[in-house]
């Protein structure tokens, strides 16, 4: 066998290298026919990333060396072809991959993997009948290989053969009664056969097993719709996406981590972000940066992912890591993103600086112009903001209503009221059906002492809110106006009424909860926040609101538990981390304090971001833990920083804490608000994501 195999390889070599078979004698030709190894197509890798090119060349070299040596066992050569084929699949060189798997299969036809992988390749190229034949062959050899059974079912479904598909999905359930993909498939079979009631049952079971499979929500919605159950349909449509029940596949799943090109992981990261899976997105962008540490796209993607996960410091670090080497537009975009992060952290000065630096390179980027204008306005530089808005109106006529509104607000601040009203009038003329714009215009008119005109705008706005969303927006606007006008009870009643029959509207419930908290009705607010979190555990704003309400009502123990839970969900959320540190360090309730734990958390955050808020939290933690020397050192630095800030209250507070530490006393909060200093409102860096996305 060995001798014959070596001869086979030797003869196969010219074919494998694409040299053809001309000039062979009859005996050789017979041997080659027996082997029939397919030549691997030549690929043009000139434009590929170096890492990817080297990876592909190296693995191909393995195959070619084995062929050249002529002494390899069929299994060894098949493995080499298989590995190379998987790489080709990863980079989507599918014809080359097919040749590899075909050769592996010919070399070791008893190995189910080669039939299966070749089937997979046929499947992704759309050759479903051929794919299914190969899957069936794989199953003859390995009858218990569940992925093949599930893919056979999907393949039959793809050919409109429901009865055959059902057989495979039912067989899959015999192999694994918890296979969500099998229930999903049976649901689709039932749907295709018009049996929507049965489909609903299967889809529901699939969702129980794979709640992340958003595509099943869509299928379920369609089934409900066909049954006339429109409310159920809408509920599932609201949760729908395109993620199918995952097939756990030991042969295919590893493809996701084979590549050496940064681009491969960038694509993965972007796709995960589209699915709102920020953990996966960040992981993919990190992998891209491992391949290419200076890749700006990967760094910006990672920053977006981390920011969405509440890790602003990590996002900033990711951007700063590539800032030095980036040039031109890349550098400008990074600066713009850094500006967004600075704005989120409340550092308006830094934000503005970044925006302006970025604008110097890409002056006509509308999103950046708007953010710069807004930052200028927030810094009170209204004239410059107006100039920025004027440029923006020239560049993006379609943004005119929104920009005019911003411009009008700046003009109000400059006391140029007539011009402001003129801008608002133009904005409303440009977007006459924007009821929310009219509501804001009404608020401005109220502010300017023109209540009759304000009322007129509100009346028009009310008339415009014809549809469901419009009515709800009107209810919310009205409630907020009532609250501003000193009628919180009226506002709350309106919101509660709006929620009737719409219990799943978390946005409405959040508004209600926030208004309850603002009105000092913390207990009710806590209950409402809890309901939101029961439905959406990753609702960061609801967590923040609930924790604030618990601390403000001095329920420090519960707050500590909620913070622990929040950090489990958002492990890198700086706001939650620092609030927990402060609670553990300076809580008025001694039963809640835990200096050691406070130090551990604070040191972790401080290692990543050595800025005053974190430094303060760490100093308080050190003091609570009895480490006064460390606490004093940090606090002295804070005092020096406070001296340079020009903020007298901040300086006084810093000095008081230093005095306490110098006297060997930990700091204890005088009010709950002191604990909440780090839990500023935050949210999503939409601007960062939009730019990067």
């Amino acid at each position, binding site marked *: 066998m060995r001798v014959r195999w070596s001869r086979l390889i030797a003869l196969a070599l010219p074919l494998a290298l694409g040299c053809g078979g001309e000039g062979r004698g009859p005996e050789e030709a017979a041997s080659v026919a027996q082997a029939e190894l397919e030549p691997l197509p030549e690929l043009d890798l000139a434009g590929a990333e170096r890492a990817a090119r080297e990876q592909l060349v190296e693995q191909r070299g393995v195959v070619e060396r084995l062929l050249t040596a002529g002494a390899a066992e069929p299994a060894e050569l098949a493995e080499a072809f298989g590995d190379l084929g998987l790489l080709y699949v990863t980079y989507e060189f599918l014809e080359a991959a097919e040749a590899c798997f075909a050769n592996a299969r010919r070399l070791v036809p008893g190995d189910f993997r080669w039939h299966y992988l070749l089937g997979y390749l046929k499947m992704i190229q*759309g050759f479903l009948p051929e794919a299914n034949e190969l899957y069936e062959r794989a199953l003859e050899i390995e009858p218990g290989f569940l992925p093949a059974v599930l893919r056979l079912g999907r393949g039959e479904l793809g050919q*409109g053969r*429901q009865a055959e598909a059902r057989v495979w999905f039912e067989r899959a359930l015999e192999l694994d009664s918890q296979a969500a993909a099998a229930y999903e498939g049976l649901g689709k079979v039932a749907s295709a056969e018009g049996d929507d009631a049965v489909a609903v049952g299967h889809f529901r079971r699939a969702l129980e097993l794979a709640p992340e499979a958003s595509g099943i929500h869509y299928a379920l919605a369609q089934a409900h719709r066909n049954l006339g159950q429109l409310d159920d349909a809408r509920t599932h449509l609201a949760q729908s996406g395109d993620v199918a029940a995952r097939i756990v596949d030991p042969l295919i799943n590893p493809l996701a981590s084979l590549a050496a*090109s940064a681009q491969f992981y960038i694509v993965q990261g972007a796709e995960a972000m589209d699915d709102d899976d920020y953990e996966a997105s960040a992981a993919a962008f990190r992998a891209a940066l491992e391949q290419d540490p200076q890749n700006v796209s990967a760094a910006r993607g990672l920053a977006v992912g981390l920011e969405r996960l509440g890790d602003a410091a990590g996002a900033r670090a990711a951007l700063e890591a590539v800032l030095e080497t980036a040039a031109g537009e890349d550098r400008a975009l990074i600066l713009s993103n850094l500006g967004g992060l600075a704005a989120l952290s409340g550092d308006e000065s830094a934000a503005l600086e970044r925006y302006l630096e970025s604008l110097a390179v890409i002056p006509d980027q509308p999103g950046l112009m708007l953010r710069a204008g807004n930052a200028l306005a927030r810094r009170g530089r209204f004239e410059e903001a107006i100039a920025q808005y004027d440029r923006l109106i020239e560049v993006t006529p379609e943004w005119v209503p929104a920009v005019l509104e911003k411009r009008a607000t700046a003009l109000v601040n400059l006391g140029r009221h007539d011009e402001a009203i003129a801008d608002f009038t133009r904005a409303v003329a440009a977007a006459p059906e924007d009821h929310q714009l009219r509501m804001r215009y009404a608020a401005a008119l109220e502010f300017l002492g023109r209540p009759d005109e304000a009322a007129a705008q509100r009346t028009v706005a009310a008339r415009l809110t014809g549809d469901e969303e419009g009515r709800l927006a009107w209810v919310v606007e009205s409630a907020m106006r009532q609250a501003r006008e000193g009628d919180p009870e009226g506002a709350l009643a309106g919101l509660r009424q709006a929620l009737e029959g719409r219990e799943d509207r978390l946005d409405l419930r959040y508004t209600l909860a926030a208004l309850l908290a603002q009105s000092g009705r913390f207990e009710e607010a806590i209950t409402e926040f809890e309901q939101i979190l029961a439905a959406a555990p990753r609702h960061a704003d609801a967590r923040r609101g609930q924790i604030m309400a618990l601390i403000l009502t001095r329920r420090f123990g519960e707050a500590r538990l909620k913070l622990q839970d929040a950090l489990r969900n958002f492990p890198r959320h700086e706001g939650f981390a620092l609030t927990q540190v402060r609670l553990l360090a300076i809580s008025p309730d001694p039963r809640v304090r835990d200096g050691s734990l406070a130090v551990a958390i604070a040191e972790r955050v401080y290692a990543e971001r050595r800025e005053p808020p974190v430094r303060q939290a760490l100093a308080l933690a050190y003091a609570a833990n009895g480490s006064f020397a460390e606490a004093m050192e940090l606090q002295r630095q804070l005092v020096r920083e406070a001296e340079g800030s020009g903020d007298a209250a901040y300086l006084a507070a810093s000095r008081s804490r230093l005095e306490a530490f110098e006297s060997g006393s930990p700091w204890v909060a005088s009010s709950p608000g002191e604990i909440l200093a780090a839990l500023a409102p935050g949210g999503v860096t939409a601007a960062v994501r939009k730019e990067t996305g």
Partner: protein
Amino acid sequence: MLGTALVAGCGGESEPRPVQSPESAAAGAPAAAESGPIFVDHTASAGLDFVHFNGMWGDLLLQEITCGAGALLDYDGDGDLDAYLLQGHMVGPGKTLDDATVPPRHQAPLTDRLYRNDLAFAAGGENSIRFVDVTAALGGAPTGYGCGVGVGDYDGDGWPDVYVANVGPNQLLRNQGDGTFRDVTAETGVGDEGTGVAAVFFDYDGDGWLDLFVGNNVTFDNTGATVCRSLSGAPDYCGPGAYPYQADRLYRNLGRGREGRVTFADATESTGLATSPPRPTLGAVTADFDGDGWVDLYVANDGQPNNLWLNRHDGTFSDEALLAGCAVNASGASEASMGVVTGDFDGDGDPDLFMTHLIKETNTLYLNDGRGSFSDATAAAGLASGSLPFTSFGTAPLDYDNDGRLDLLIVNGAVTLLPSLVAAGDPFPLHQTNQLFHNEGATSAGAPRFADVTDRAGKVFELSEVGRGLARGDVDNDGDIDALVINNGGPPRLMVNQVGSSGSWLGARPISCASASDALGARVTVRRSGGTPQRRRVQTDGSFSSAADPRLLFGMGAARAADSLSAVWPDGSAARWRQPPVGRYAVLSPSCGRGGGP
């Protein structure tokens, strides 16, 4: 005018009344042998010497591979279809024709081209198509980088006008009825400056004047600053997600004003179309999807959910695509929708939807339940696996064999570099072959079943080109549907049908009352004993970037006669004829005096 005229008498039943001798080929004209090709390439023999110039110069810019558009229209009213083909220009700032990778075939300045069909009739034989380049008739007007075209008689003067959607300002070319066109963009107010790829004339408000939908794609970045890569990191063309999406535009036709000019107003906001976020539109098609008697609009977007704009009868639309089941496919995934057509594929009387997609996505068939609820029937119809290896653009519902069922012609061409072609050193490694699917009839579950008949469709289907646009129409007036494929960076292909006219057929051209122009939106039903009623709607829209023959063609299968033909005009006028003539086109005119209109 070719064919027979049928005039409705007060909306009741009447006998067909020929008013002019038919000159068309009679039913039962000699057919090609069954083993012969279904379509034959007549591009060169017909004198269609156009070559699309895409402006590529070495960078990989999405704009250069997006376009390829044309229209089949009878601009001179002589009863046969002429061809309007859109041209490209250099892409990228500062680039000149000297920089082009492939120099243009036509002399500068490059403009769209108009070809007049001087069809020669051959009694008992194959009609002879002869296209004559009459681009001078355009007066040098079409100067933009053309990417989409719509055809309709916007001013109700009886002559079809042409709206050219460009990358940049669009142009409305008014057919002056004397063989020439005039640019009336400024005076009509329809010069949208987006990246237009779809242009659809339809009367959404029922006032008798054709309104205009313009589908816009993305804001291309041709500076080279936006670079995209394949998974191996090699430079490749970007997808739409790399660029800002553009909003679509809907213009309402205000009719003829006091000065005698027809003008439009931007109704995007007032109709509710602005409630959808901008998406990269590539296709659009109209039909009464929910069966309420009002025309609706379906918009196909590239990689984003599609829109089903249902007409709310008050001058507004609402997007119901998601609940209706036609925003995303059965897996809940937004697909890269390119071309879209509507037709009654399952023969149940309502308009279904078929649209083309990217490689590794299926093309998708959505079947309508008659009330505007759709189900993805792609797999059941046998259309899934065959489409996965291709990136498809233009498509046409055409009953190529006149058996009474709508078949599908699909035009393909990739949008990212194909590795095998790159490795082979191909200078334009995007080309793919086209496909033809035959409708085999409904299965027991009700879905139609299609068979891939590309292998026997003819040698023209062996050509591998970068297909984009596709306009269907009976170019040789022999009673079967031909097709004009418009390729990017290459010549078009005039595919002449060799088999359809071997069967019995019935043609219909509903016209509007006052202007005698094609009555876009009119619906015609043909009934024959033992057969499923066939329902068709007059439209030039659909496919990708292209405009089609508005005439309706009904294949009669083995039947030699139809029992009846009934028509409903957009203004509600209706008429029915018993035993309409077969083997010719009948001009259908409503009972004038009812309804409004130009």
